[in-house]
């Protein structure tokens, strides 16, 4: 590859995603049952799609304001107030991004000076660590433990903080573990965040998919609200992954600064998608509820099934992933996934793709029909029996 010599040092240091390998392998096979996808299986609700079609028909296809459609920002702030009782001013403290991914990048590039440390909780979504590095930050990893139900403990947080720590990046309910934090869990770490004046970036993309407890945003603690930046979006709760609409809620000065980057490299997210999102935020609460109810049944189904076939699995309280241990098989995560794919044509993702501490686990998405999950479980059981 002759082009490689032109690449900058930083990008060369960033490894390719650990998921890519399985995607390429699975993509060449016929008859694969996949439990590997990080997106809901519902079609986007029709009333939301209809609004996008209407926007096109009526010619609403121009640029919007850099920070996004005023109606959308109003509806998002009304939504946060209605669902989570947190107030943000739509005209100063809210901006629309191209999915949650752009939002993460904006935060890193706006907040970090080179060498600043960012506390990441792993296993975590694959984009977090590279985006920290690309912005010149230094990731400081806290390894979440199954024994703690993948929650952040005050002890672990204290130990990770140094005088270079600038930002704490959390994601509850989280990908890939489904780990969640209740109000009581947060209460234990708030004083530490306050004391060290940390910026908290909270990725709340799975907030609506919280099971058996009330979702609590860390921004609901008034004493640190100013330090908190919320990322959320429409992908997971409304099943709108391909629309690419996310948003940021934060202090006015931080939003203004992030918009400096956003206005030059993005201009604005798709206008049509934004009109669809207005409908989702205003009239989509019932869609979220339906999606959540469906996921909850599938979560129970897969956890009970996995434990029955001998893969120990804690009952997650959020998102649509389970993170069972495969240590009993004696295989590494990579070996397990590769052999399972080759032998039984079931695609799951190795836990190690989400950080070194994910080794010994696999991530299974249950955003599939009960029939598909059942078939995958049958194949996995056969696979596990073959290892004995």
């Amino acid at each position, binding site marked *: 590859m002759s082009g490689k010599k032109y690449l900058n040092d930083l990008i060369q240091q960033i490894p390719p995603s650990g998921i890519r390998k399985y*995607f390429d392998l699975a993509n060449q096979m016929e008859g694969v049952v996949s439990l590997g996808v990080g997106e809901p299986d519902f079609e986007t609700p029709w009333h939301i799609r209809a609004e996008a079609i209407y926007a096109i028909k009526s010619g609403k296809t121009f640029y919007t304001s850099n920070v996004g459609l005023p109606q959308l920002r109003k509806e998002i702030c009304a939504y946060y107030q209605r669902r989570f009782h947190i107030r943000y001013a739509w005209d100063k403290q809210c901006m629309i991004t191209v999915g949650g991914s752009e939002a993460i990048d904006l935060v890193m590039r706006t907040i970090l000076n080179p060498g600043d440390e960012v506390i990441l909780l792993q296993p975590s979504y694959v984009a977090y660590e590279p985006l920290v590095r690309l912005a010149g930050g230094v990731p400081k990893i806290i390894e979440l433990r199954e024994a703690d139900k993948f929650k952040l403990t005050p002890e672990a947080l204290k130990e990770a903080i140094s005088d270079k720590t600038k930002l704490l990046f959390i994601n509850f309910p989280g*990908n890939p573990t489904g780990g969640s934090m209740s109000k009581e869990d947060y209460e234990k770490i708030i004083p530490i965040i306050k004391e060290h004046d940390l910026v908290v970036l909270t990725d709340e993309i799975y907030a609506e998919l919280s099971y058996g407890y009330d979702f609590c945003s860390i921004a609901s603690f008034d004493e640190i609200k100013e330090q908190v930046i919320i990322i959320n979006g429409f992908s997971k709760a409304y099943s709108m992954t391909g629309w690419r609409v996310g948003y940021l809620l934060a202090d006015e000065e931080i939003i203004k600064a992030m918009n400096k980057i956003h206005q030059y490299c993005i201009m604005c997210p798709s206008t049509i998608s934004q009109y669809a999102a207005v409908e989702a935020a205003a009239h989509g609460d019932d869609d979220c509820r339906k999606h959540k109810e469906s996921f909850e049944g599938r979560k129970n189904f897969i956890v009970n099934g996995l434990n029955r076939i001998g893969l120990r699995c804690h009952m997650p309280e959020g998102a649509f992933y389970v993170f069972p241990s495969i240590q009993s098989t004696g295989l590494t995560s990579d070996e397990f996934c590769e052999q399972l794919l080759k032998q039984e044509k079931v695609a799951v993702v190795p836990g190690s793709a989400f950080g070194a501490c994910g080794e010994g686990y696999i991530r299974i998405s249950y955003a599939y029909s*009960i029939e598909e999950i059942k078939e995958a479980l049958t194949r996995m059981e056969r696979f596990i029996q073959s290892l004995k």
Partner: protein
Amino acid sequence: MDEIKLLRVLENDPRISVRDLADILNETEESVVETKCKLENEKIICGYHTVINWDKTNYDHCMAVIEVGAQPERECGYDNVASEIARYPEVSSLYLMSGKSEFMVVIQGKTMREVADFVGQKLAPIEGVKHTVTCFVLRPYKIEGVIISEEEETAERLIVTP
């Protein structure tokens, strides 16, 4: 046990096995069986039916929706007329309605002739029935929440994504 959740799962898949149902609800198989029996006995679960598009078979089938005007009776209102109408096996659904006519009756028969005869000879003469308006179904598009159409292309998701 959350009975509403159980009902919602059964509504979408009445054939589901007890074990799968127990796994989905995170309950024991015994308590699922018990609750299901209870709901059946209480007539909250009234039956388990199959959604069939008869048009795709070579079986003669004809369906009509009929508005029926009726006279209420002292003490029992429309109940007597309703139970008279409901007696006929040709009647697959019967609702008391607001609006111009009192009842909405769904009739299933083999041919238009058969349905027409039923309306003229059985339904209209029932005591208390004032008038009928027969509307034949030309083509079903959606039955019981299921869209009846040629195979639509389903959007594909990638096999593995983060």
